[in-house]
């Protein structure tokens, strides 16, 4: 089991009436009314400090991601953060999990291949290369990519990235969206043939197929918890089985919001308002923006329209206890948190690469460190060996980190050869 600390780098001081006053947290929130560059500099540094703290506290990896023009999480280039983290964690066995730079917003997309290769060089081969499609808000609304072309661009860029990392010869790429006459990447990654690849998705069948076909780790970045993800992840595992792949739990990643305190009651006292801030303000986006026409291919559109999932509940109608009861957030005492994580997420969804979001919404720096610390000491050690008895190899983790040198636990006994 690999457990990584994920960070969004949100705005932590949005006004109490934010969601009533403004159209959206994404694309259109007015910077000059809502933010201050000096304060935002503080957020970036807190974010780095929190992730470095997690790395030192025993997490297996640290995750950052890319979003644009928003107050929900604004690291427009996660590789800037990743490079600080890579440098700061040299000498440790912590993976730099970029979840990651978005290919369709990078032009030409070999920019991502180059920056990831740099991170792999700086970190000495500790990079996990997340290659997300990117959200419609980022890619279509902020960066102007035509929804109908979004997936095509991604797939072309994905193929280009893999070839650019591995090609022994200089090659010409005469693509539909990208034309490069001399692809000759400098630098190349330390890991061969390339860093492990994770592809985040949100449940579309075509992404399951893509992930299994390319033998990558499929990651569901969920804000509505494991219970609502069960059918979806079941669909993923079905595709894995149908395609004749082994049901290795490390093929699956999952992001879970977690808040730990000495007791369930104390967790509510400490975290309730930050959880509500996250769901009420940080996810305040007009519905149509999540699915501009053309973003879903016709097959998926028809499937979604003819089998409408039950109307998703509006998080703005829910309060802390609802979020906890429904598993959107796993919060409470260390025993509560580890039992629920194990039962609902790790075993329930068959997840080998767990990501936890421990800085939630407006959660201040000191409280975040407390959450990280408590998780690292009282939850993480109980989860680390979960899959060891099955003997799977985590092919989707940097090879030199699969067994932590000097780790607290021995290497998995029955690990299969890579």
């Amino acid at each position, binding site marked *: 089991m690999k457990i990584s600390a994920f960070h969004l780098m949100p705005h932590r001081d949005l006004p109490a009436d934010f969601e009533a006053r403004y159209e959206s947290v994404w694309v259109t929130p007015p910077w000059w009314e809502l933010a201050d560059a000096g304060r935002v500099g503080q957020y970036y540094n807190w974010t780095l400090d929190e992730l470095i703290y997690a790395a030192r506290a025993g997490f297996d990896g640290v995750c950052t991601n890319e979003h644009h023009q928003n107050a929900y999480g604004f690291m427009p280039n996660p590789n800037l953060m990743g490079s600080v983290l890579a440098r700061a964690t040299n000498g440790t066995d912590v993976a730099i999990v970029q979840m990651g730079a978005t290919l369709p917003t990078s032009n030409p997309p070999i920019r991502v291949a180059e920056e990831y290769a740099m991170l792999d060089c700086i970190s000495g081969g500790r990079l996990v290369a997340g290659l997300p499609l990117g959200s419609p808000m980022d890619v*279509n609304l902020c960066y102007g990519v035509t929804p109908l072309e979004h997936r095509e661009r991604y797939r072309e860029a994905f193929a280009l990235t893999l070839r650019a990392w591995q090609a022994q010869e200089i090659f010409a790429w005469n693509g539909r969206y990208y034309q490069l006459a001399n692809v000759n990447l400098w630098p190349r990654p330390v890991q061969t043939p390339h860093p492990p690849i994770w592809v985040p998705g949100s449940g579309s069948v075509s992404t399951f197929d893509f992930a299994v076909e390319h033998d990558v780790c499929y990651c569901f970045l969920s804000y509505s918890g494991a219970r609502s993800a069960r059918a979806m992840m079941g669909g993923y595992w079905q595709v894995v089985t149908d395609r004749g792949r082994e049901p290795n739990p490390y093929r699956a990643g999952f992001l879970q919001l977690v808040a730990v305190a000495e007791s369930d009651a104390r967790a509510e006292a400490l975290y309730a308002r930050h959880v509500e801030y996250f769901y009420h303000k940080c996810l305040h986006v007009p519905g149509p923006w999540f699915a501009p026409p053309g973003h879903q291919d016709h097959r998926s559109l028809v499937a979604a329209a003819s089998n409408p999932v039950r109307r998703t509940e509006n998080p703005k109608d829910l309060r802390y206890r609802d979020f906890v009861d429904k598993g959107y957030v796993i919060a409470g005492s260390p025993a509560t948190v580890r039992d629920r994580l194990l039962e609902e997420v790790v075993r329930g969804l068959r997840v080998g690469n767990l990501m936890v979001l421990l800085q939630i919404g407006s959660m201040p720096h000191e409280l975040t460190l407390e959450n990280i610390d408590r998780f690292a000491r009282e939850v993480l050690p109980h989860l680390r060996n979960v899959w060891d008895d099955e003997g799977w190899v985590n092919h989707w983790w940097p090879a030199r980190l699969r067994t932590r040198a000097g780790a607290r636990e021995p290497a998995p006994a029955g690990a299969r050869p890579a």
Partner: protein
Amino acid sequence: MTGERTESVWQGRVRIRVRTAGSGPPLVFFHGSWGLDWDPFLDALARRYTVVAPEHPGTTPGAPDDVYHLDGLWDLVLCYDELLATLGIERAALVGHSFGGMVACEVAATFPRRATHLALIAPIGLWRDADPVVNWALLTPDALRARLFHDLDGTAARRLVPSGDADGAVDARVRLTWAMGATGKFTWPIPDKGLGKRLHRVTAPALLVWGADDRLVPRAYAAEFARRLPVARVEMVERAGHAPHWEHPEAVARLVADFLGAAEGAPRADGRGAAAS
């Protein structure tokens, strides 16, 4: 009654259903981003013209993925040139609504001899920073209705975005969404793909019909088109939004017919040039 046939262009890769009705000189109608729905406006035109209404690539039922064979606007314009050739239409009056108006302009600018007249109903294709065109693809159904129509409770408004879970309503919403997605290929994120620097090539006289209450493409664009087209005049339709031909089909059809009839030598389908009746 309308007839329909499906033609293949682009080496058979792009299937386009063409709906036709009426008799008289040929009139090609290019629909907007919301799909082709044969409507009373087209019926009114069909009383005097042979109305030929193709569906934009991807919007023809059963052929949603054909649009992926086109790389961009240039390919689309060439597809329509091939389609007109396939249909045996050498020259015709080109009529278009919104995105269809942009397509009509692009065809007329690329192949000036193909257009005898241009009748443009609230066309897109130009951009003014002071009057941004609203991105219709990002609106809720209610907001879309409010942007498109002057009378939100009228027949046309209710027909465009049906609500409820009946099969017909679900299918209609899928068609509407996919029509916006497929045509968005040629308009996202700003519906200005350089038409302004090509409009001078148009030789056909142009009519611009605009709803006085257009809340999607501000009426300032009427003057912008008129300024750039060699010969153009503007007709404003009161109590109409972005689709005046849906809200006032007879009146807008009359404006178009008057324009076509007034101009000399509207040709027949065989291209030999008989005046419209």
